[in-house]
């Protein structure tokens, strides 16, 4: 049967997290959608019980139309050789956009959480270091949010070299060259 290994893992997990929705995306990729409150418990089990020792990454997606942030935790199991993507959604509004840290479980989470904090403005409660890192000299809004348009910002803020040769003007006049 296809995806035997993946399905047996899902079975074990489903027992403890009946509310979670598991799908096998392809070989060695399991996707799970969780309520955000259960994520920490899930992470603890992942590490302590199911042997997912490697936190590959934490990704954040800004679903601006839904008013939600999606956090995707990528866990990897060195023995079973399976990657689990745990997806949760948290509200996007300013006061609510914080979430609990898992950096006490996985050291790599420190960087990812700090990065998400800088880029999206999500605060991770309980993380020891939420200071500026990459954007220490940046004063604008968190740039990875969808409502920040880098092109507009750059065009307004930076000085551009004035360079308008004739061929470019011709092209523009002909209505070409956009995008």
């Amino acid at each position, binding site marked *: 049967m296809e995806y035997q290994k993946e399905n047996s893992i899902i079975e074990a997990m489903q027992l403890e997290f009946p509310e979670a929705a598991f799908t096998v995306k392809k070989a060695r990729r399991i996707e799970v959608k969780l309520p955000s409150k259960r994520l920490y418990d899930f992470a603890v089990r992942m590490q302590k019980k199911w042997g997912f020792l490697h936190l590959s990454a934490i990704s954040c997606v800004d679903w601006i139309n839904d008013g939600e942030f999606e956090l995707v935790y990528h866990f990897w199991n060195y023995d079973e050789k399976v990657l689990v993507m745990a997806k949760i959604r948290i509200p996007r509004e300013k006061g609510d956009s914080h979430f609990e840290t898992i950096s006490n479980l996985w050291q790599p989470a420190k960087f990812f959480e700090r990065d998400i904090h800088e880029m999206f403005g999500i605060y991770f409660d309980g993380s020891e270091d939420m200071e500026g890192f990459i954007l220490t*000299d940046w004063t604008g809004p968190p*740039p990875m949010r969808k409502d920040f348009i*880098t092109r507009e910002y750059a065009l307004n803020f*930076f*000085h*551009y070299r004035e360079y308008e040769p004739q061929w470019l003007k011709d092209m523009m006049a002909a209505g070409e060259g956009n995008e």
Partner: protein
Amino acid sequence: MDEKITQRSVWEKISAKLSKRSLWMLHYCTGCGAIELPPTMTARFDMERFGINPMVTPRQADILLITGYLSVKTLKRVVLTYEQMQAPKYVVGFGSCTINGGMYWNSYSTMKSLDRYIPVETYIAGCMPRPEAIIASFNELINKIDRGEANSWKDYYNNYNFYKENQEHTFEGPIETYNDIKADAALFNIK
């Protein structure tokens, strides 16, 4: 420009002839162009043939090679480093990013035109330019020094207000470098 060349004394001409043979480049990898520096320095292209050596601190260096794009954060350090360098100093802008932002023309983080912040002596276009291009630009710089035209560093003292304005705009405030540019200008008999 032409007037200045004719005004040069014999001593200055000899001085230029000798000085151009020794140019020390600051070892500062500001952007992705830094990847082409090791090949330039080492056995394949060996820029030491021209007397160009990598140097560690800005006090020792003559050339500030801006290897590619500069994020605002780096640009601050570059300005500081440039002010710490000792005149005569030459800035070489490397890669398209230093000219007009290049690939990152719409990035919120990188500056778009280097010569608004510090005076640039030569540019190398391309993304990324090959080691041969770096050496060619160095040779161009050497020739400029020989002809007595490599005086862009004086612009920084002549037009300091222009540079300062741009810096303060981009950095959203002044930066404290503990360098007294006005006093330096007096040292060079500028103004």
